[in-house]
């Protein structure tokens, strides 16, 4: 195994595993598709990274964070659904950014670039992936209660604004990291598919979280190894692996 392959496997497992765990919260809020527009906004940032030769996630991150903070403020101000605000903020961001950026340079950002990941980027993925995992784990009950009924959460003393911010920042980090693994077009799949597969076979919340994380990590390992063996890009193979896992779980669906 080459050092590059090892680094991409480590990065992939941390990014995909924590993305899938976060995905269980997003799926419960019917927000799994939100990572899609977020990934699209990451594209101009990723293009900048390609033009100036730095890491894709690093380029994507500020764009996604600014967008996320805008959504957070607008949600408090307008009381519109987060998914509607996401569509507004990110479509506007993409449209504005694409006027000025050399989009032809962004092609590599569409399907990810994990095979070229370096040591520092791997360390960053491990730290940020773990951070997201811990943040989600510590605030899981609170965010789940907000997902079920916001007023109920408020009267139970939960600071809804704070937890919404933690939740959105976790999404921002995962989307930025996800751009490196599967590209800006497919970040939604990192959160949505393993969580949907886990939901098919879970009876309890614990099973839901654990299985989703495992499906995400397994998809990254299988996808990256198949990429090394076949020469196809890793991003699409990671997503196709998780789609295959989803297909296997469909007959066991409990609903």
């Amino acid at each position, binding site marked *: 195994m080459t050092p590059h392959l090892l680094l991409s496997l480590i990065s992939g497992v941390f990014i995909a595993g924590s993305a899938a765990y976060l995905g269980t919260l997003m799926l*419960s809020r019917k927000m799994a598709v939100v990572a899609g527009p977020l990934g699209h906004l990451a594209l101009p940032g990723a293009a900048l990274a390609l033009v100036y030769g730095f890491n894709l996630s690093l380029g994507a991150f500020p764009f996604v964070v600014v967008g996320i903070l805008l959504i957070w403020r607008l949600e408090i101000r307008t009381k519109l659904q987060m998914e509607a605000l996401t569509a507004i903020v990110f479509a506007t961001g993409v449209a504005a950014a694409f006027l000025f950026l050399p989009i032809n340079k962004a092609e590599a950002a569409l399907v990810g670039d994990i095979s070229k990941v370096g040591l520092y980027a791997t360390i960053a993925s491990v730290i940020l992936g773990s951070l997201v995992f811990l943040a989600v784990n510590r605030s899981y*009950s609170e965010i*789940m*209660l907000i997902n*079920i*009924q916001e*007023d*109920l959460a*408020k*009267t*139970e003393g939960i600071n809804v604004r704070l937890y919404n911010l933690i939740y959105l920042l976790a999404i921002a980090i995962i989307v930025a990291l996800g751009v490196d693994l599967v590209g800006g077009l497919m970040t939604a799949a990192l959160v949505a598919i393993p969580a949907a597969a886990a*939901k098919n076979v*879970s*009876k*309890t*919340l*614990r*099973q*839901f979280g654990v299985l989703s994380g495992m499906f995400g990590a397994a998809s990254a390992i299988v996808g990256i190894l198949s990429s090394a063996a076949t020469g196809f890009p890793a991003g699409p193979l990671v997503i196709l692996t998780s789609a295959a896992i989803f297909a296997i779980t469909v007959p066991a669906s*409990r*609903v």
Partner: protein
Amino acid sequence: MGKILLEVKNLSVTLGGTPVLSELSFSVEEGEILTILGPNGSGKTVLLKALLGLLPFTGEVNWHKKPRIGYLPQGLNQMSVRDMPLTVEDFFALKKLKRDQVLRYLPLVGLESGVLNKRAGYLSGGEFQRMLVAWVLASRPEVLFLDEPTTAIDVVGGETIYSLLKNIWREQNLTMFVVTHDLNIVYAHSTHVLCLSRFAHTCYGIPKEVLTPEVLNDMYATDVKFYTHPGTLSQ
């Protein structure tokens, strides 16, 4: 009955530029069951939310002490959890309750321990509502806010819920705020009633005294056929 718990003075709420409640004043004593009665759109839920601090208002809402509050919101029905892999035990764990703590509250609402392993979305309507009551009670509230607690269940199931709540009210000396548009509930289960109408005519007091045919006709803007409930309330 006892000390004044809550005083509301000149409470007004405006939503989206439309006044929903205006200049409402009343007070609630500890141990009351106050039913908030009124037709759809009269602002019952809005009043509850304003008292809970969930909506902006003008006027005064003075709690004489800071009670532990339990709230059963109207929108919390089984559809909210229908497709989630969420067992009854998981649902209680969302408020950091351990299994043995939960087991103390299930018998209060007539549920058995076996229900803990069932998915919340697959309970019957009545079981789900009783689970919610147990969930709210598990925080040991001193004041309960119940917004249409029997909407999703049939008449018999609804009567069971109210009987359960009244038993708990007797045993634990709770103060309860109940929103309903069901007149029978007012007569059978309330110590006091606050009526709201879309024309800002309000009444407040003991149900048998204040709910005259004129008040009801005014509130519902139609002829209401009613009879006085023979049962009397005793604590």
